[in-house]
Each structure stands twice: as structure tokens, then as C-alpha cells.
């Protein structure tokens, strides 16, 4: 096998890429995407991607910057709707229900498929109100005590409760970056979504906060399906069961995390994870 491929060989490999290497489907998928193309205006950002997300699994999406990981992730809960130029074709479903079908309300979809963003984005509200926001708008608590319970247990799950329990009235923005990110995670799990999408959730965090969040992701897996975009190969290896490698808008390879990192089948994947380009 030619491991010392130069760039032109790699681009040949990319041009010849017709089909994703590895098995994109799973039994009983929570979410699935088939032949998805995404355009920003004239420019195509995603080419014919098919991928399933299973229950109780963490799937990591890796790939060089600008390859469309965020774009794909945002399609999964229709966050791309707020970008006027963005157009999505192909099929996507949650529990077999078409995401882009006429009958589906994106507002309800997003309550079921939550998202944590790359940059922490707490609301201009107190810590308590940040977490209580989702439960309040969805009427998840019938009284203050129930709401308190939801807020506190979400903060505990996100590993933030100890640090903030005596200042729940302080503004969310007064927290440190890492604490803000955990606040955003707490906010997301407070509405008990079925799927959580995380777009580089640890990119602004120090190693300790990162370790905490990775632990949290592992715990959350018991109840949720999780898709995480990350630039850290180690992180992908630590938290995920399956890994998907994206390259210039195409899904190059999917497989169990173990296999991808120890025995990548596609040249591009190998180049990327061995750090030859990216």
C-alpha cells in the first residue's frame, strides 16, 4: 500500500471517490440521512452524503476545516433554515419521519434534536433562567418546584452545579468560557431531547473542562443519541463508538472508531488521521 502518497495522488483518490467506504447504515437508526446535498446559493457544500445515527451511540465527525461537518450537523435539526441561501436536498429522517416533509414542524424537531454550539452562547439571563428557558417554553414543569428540579438535575448532569449552586441568579455570561459551555449543555439536556448534536463543544475549553465534558458525553449516551464534531482525533477516539470522516463535502469513510483509527481503509482518511494533511 502506498502510504507515502503525495498530494496529487490524494486528489486523484478524492476525484475517484464515488461511494463512502464502510457501512453507513445501522440497525434501527435514530436518525438517517440519504443522498443529502447541501447548497449555499450556487455553491455546493455537501455532496451525496448518506449516514445513520444509532441510539445510545456517540458518532464522531472529523475532517479538515471547511469540509462541511457543521453544515451536515445543522441539517439534522434544520438549523440551516435560518440561513436564507441554504438549500438541502435528499432525505433525512428522525425515527422514520421525514425531517424536511410538509408535516414536520422544525420547532418541534429542535425540541427533540438539541444542539450545542462551537462557541458558548448563553442567553442574557441568569444561570437559572438559561437552563429554565427550554422547560418553560415547552411547559415541562407545572410548578416552581418541578422547574427547580429540572434545572438542578440538568446542572448536575452537566457537571456545573457545584460551582454555581450559590449564585444561580448571576448572569450566565459572568461564567468562564468552560463553565458557559457546560451551561449550554445543561440548557440542552434540560428539555430532554432524543438526539444531541455537538459542534466542537470543547474547542474553547481547557483540558480539565474537556475531560469533564467527555465524561458527561459518555454518561449521556445511556439515554441519548449523540453526534459530535471534533478536530481532536484523541477526543474522537475517546468518546465515540463510530467515526465518520468528511473531506471537501463528501463523506469518505465511516466505521467503528477502533477500525478507523487503527486500520483506515481509504487513503484520505489515513492521511488525515496520521496528520499528513488537514
Amino acid at each position, binding site marked *: 500500500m502506498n502510504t507515502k502518497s503525495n498530494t496529487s495522488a490524494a486528489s486523484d483518490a478524492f476525484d475517484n471517490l464515488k461511494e463512502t467506504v464502510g457501512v453507513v447504515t445501522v440497525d434501527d437508526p435514530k436518525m438517517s440521512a440519504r443522498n443529502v446535498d447541501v447548497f449555499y446559493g450556487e455553491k455546493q457544500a455537501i455532496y451525496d452524503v448518506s449516514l445513520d445515527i444509532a441510539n445510545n451511540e456517540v458518532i464522531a465527525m472529523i475532517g479538515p476545516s471547511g469540509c462541511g461537518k457543521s453544515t451536515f450537523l445543522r441539517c439534522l435539526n434544520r438549523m440551516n433554515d435560518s440561513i436564507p441561501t441554504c438549500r438541502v436536498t435528499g432525505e433525512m429522517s428522525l425515527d422514520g419521519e421525514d425531517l424536511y416533509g410538509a408535516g414536520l414542524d422544525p420547532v418541534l424537531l429542535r425540541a427533540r434534536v438539541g444542539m450545542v454550539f462551537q462557541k458558548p452562547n448563553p442567553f442574557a439571563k441568569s444561570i437559572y433562567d438559561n437552563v429554565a428557558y427550554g422547560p418553560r417554553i415547552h411547559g415541562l414543569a407545572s410548578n416552581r418546584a418541578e422547574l427547580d428540579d429540572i434545572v438542578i438535575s440538568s446542572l448536575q448532569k452537566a457537571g456545573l452545579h457545584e460551582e454555581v449552586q450559590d449564585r444561580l441568579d448571576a448572569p450566565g455570561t459572568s461564567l468562564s468560557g468552560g463553565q458557559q459551555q457546560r451551561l449550554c449543555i445543561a440548557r*440542552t439536556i434540560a428539555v430532554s431531547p432524543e438526539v444531541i448534536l455537538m459542534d466542537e463543544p470543547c474547542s474553547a475549553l481547557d483540558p480539565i473542562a474537556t475531560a469533564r465534558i467527555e465524561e458527561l458525553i459518555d454518561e449521556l449516551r445511556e439515554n441519548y443519541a449523540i453526534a459530535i464534531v471534533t478536530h481532536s482525533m484523541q477526543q474522537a477516539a475517546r468518546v465515540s463508538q463510530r467515526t465518520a470522516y468528511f473531506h471537501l463535502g463528501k463523506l469518505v469513510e465511516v466505521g467503528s472508531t477502533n477500525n478507523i483509527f487503527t486500520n483506515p481503509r481509504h487513503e484520505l482518511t489515513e492521511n488525515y488521521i496520521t496528520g499528513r494533511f488537514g
Partner: protein
Amino acid sequence: MTTTNLVLLLLGLGLATFFYGRQKAYVVSKSHGGMRNMHSLPSQHGVMVAIWCALPALLLVLFWKLAEPAVISSMLNSVIPASVMDGGDKAIGLYKNDIANIIESGKASSNPEKQVVADRWVALSSISSWVLLAIVLAIAAIGAATALRKISPDTRARVMVERVVHWFLIICSSIAILTTVGILCSVLFESFRFFQQVSFVEFVTGTKWSPQTAIRVDQVGSSGSFGAIPLFTGTLLISAIAMVVAVPIGLLAAIYLAEYASDRMRAFAKPLLEILAGIPTVVYGFFAALTVAPAIREWGELIGLSPSSESALAAGVVMGIMIIPFVSSLSDDVITAVPQAMRDGSYALGATHSETIKKVVLPAALPGVVSGILLAASRAIGETMIVVMAAGLAANLTANPLEAVTTVTVQIVTLLTGDQEFDSAKTLAAFALGLMLFFTTLVLNIIALHVVRRYREQYD
């Protein structure tokens, strides 16, 4: 040589020495192994030379011109006839006025005695300006020479220039502050004179406003009353009506523009809305008086009320329309400035567009919205023309928006227009009203600033 020419000459000299100094600094830097070894840049040396050349000279011109009139006038005393000098300050002042008129007219006076004084005056002025020119040029030359000699790698020209700029900025800002203090002092002083004639307690607690003062002591109805309460309630009533109109409409328009309108719609509607603020208030005034007030009267009569033909409601509503852009434009800007990431966070939790606006965007934009509302409120309180035309001049103490009322600013205008004796209570009352208005808006601003700051501290 006139003062203007002198100042222009000095500025020109400054410019010339700047270029020369910069050039010299280049040369010096060459002989010292390049720019790297110079503490300051050539242009900074240039500015330093220009400052040394022009600044002391300009300051001298300023002081000279301030002192000149007094000095010349005292020197004239020796040629003024003794008969005038014995007449006291007032007579001397009149005499000097005469002389000034003779000089200004340019014609020889028929009175030879006065002509002598006038000639003397002209001669002194001309000597003064030549002496000034000589001294100023000498100072400029010495300054420039000193500074040019100082150009060397170690000279801290940048530090010196920055210090001068620093002081210049301080002086500019103190001019603004001093002007405010000066206005405040003069208003305070005149108000104090007013309160010597009318008691302060009557002014702030009196409910009757009819600012008459007697011309003759035995005149009928000579006693005026200066109770300012009807004016302040009038101001409050009209401003409140205006805010009730402007805040909801302005805020909702801003939300529409920022959140729902397409880009094309926004580009078209926002400038159109802002035109409202550019319409002259007098146009609003006759719109209020000729269109809105009669309409209100008709409608009022239809439902069995009897509104007066001039009403607080008409003025307030039209004023409200006028200040809509103050609320909407600023609010639109701050709402648009709320980061998309924050909205995305809300959408990602399954919030609808309107929930996101209500519970995430507006709270985040609140400080800006509040300052827009404040700006509108201060416009409403200060507005005069619409009220004069639509709400009348009658100082009624009423909370009924269908009656005629008047406001503080309108009364200030009516008190000061026409021929007035400057120390009558009637005229001085305007200053007292101004003072009260000043304090009212000051207190409003302080409260609002406090609110905004607390909010900012929490959420930035």
C-alpha cells in the same frame, strides 16, 4: 495687521517649520545610522518644531488681544478732557463710545477735542499691533530655532507632542464642561433673583399660573401668580401621551424591521421611517392644529364629550408620531446587533421565532432600547412648537387629555418674546422654569443611566 492675518501667518509658519523640521530629522537620522537609532519619527520631530514655533506665539496673541482694550483705554485717560473725567465712570464710558463711533465712521469729527482723542486711540492701536507683530515673530523664530537645535536621536519628540495633544484635548473637553457650567450658573443666578420676588414655595406648590406683573402700582389685576404645577403637569401629560403613542409603535416597528422584514423591505422602510424625524416641528404643529385637533373634537362630540378645540391629546399624539423614529431606529439597530449565535441557541432548544424575540432578543437588547426611549422622552419634554400650535397657552391644571394645557417650554417662550423689562418677575420666571426643567431632565437621565448600567453590569 489684523489678528486674523497674524494667526494665519503663525499657522503658516508652523506648517513650514513642520516640513523643515521633518526634513532636518531625516538628515540627522542618516548621519546617526538610520531611523532605528532615533527615539522619535521625523514627522514627530516636525510637529515638535511646529509647536515650539507657533504655540507660544499664538498664546501671546491671545493674551495680548485680551489685555489690549483695557490697556489702551487706560492710556487714553490722559488725553480725555478733565471735565469728562470728573463726570465719573458713566460719563467716561459714554465719551469713549463716542470716540469709538468716530473711529468706526472713518470721517473726521466736527469736534476737534474728540478728534484728538480719536487720533490718539488709532495711533495707540497701531503701535500695539506692530509691537505685537515684532514680539510674536521673535518668539516664533526663537522657538523654532531652539526646537531645530534639539533634533537629535535622543530627543523625545513623540512624548512631547503627545503631551501637548493631551493638554489640547483636556482644554477642548473643559470648554464643553465650562459652557455647561456657565449656562447653569447664569440660569441659577437669574432664578435666584426671581425667587427674591416670588417665594420658592409658591413657585413649586402653586397651582395657578398667570404671569402678570404690574406696570403701574395701582393697576387692576396687578398681582401675578407664579405656580408652576400646571405647567409641569401639562408637560407630563403631553409627554406621557406622546410616549404612549411612540413606544409601542416604535418598538413594534423596530421588531418588524429587524426580525421579519426582508432585506429589501428594510432598506426601503427604515429610511422612510427616519424621515419622520426630519420633518420640521412647525409642520407637525399645524398638522396637529388643523387636522388632528378638529378630528378629535368631532369624534369627542360624537360620543358625547366636549373636547376643547385645542387639546393635550392632539399635541401628544402628533408629538408621539414625531418621536417614533427615535425609538424605532435605535431599537432596530440594537436588536439587529444581538448576535445570531444567541438566537441560534434559542432555536436549537425548540423555541419559535416569537418566543426567541420576546425572551432572548429583547432582554439582550434592552439597554439600547431603553436609551432610545430616553432620547425620545427628552425630545418630547423639550418640544415646544407642536404644543404652542395644538395644545394652547392656557395653564389648566387637569389630567383630562381633551382639555387645553400648556407646557414649561411653551411658557418660557411666551415669557421671553416681545418687549420685556429684563428684571421683572415675569421675565425672570422663565429662568426659574428653565432651571426646574433642567433638574427634571437631569433626574430622569440619572435614573435611566442607573437602570441601564445595572442591567449592563449583569448581562455584558
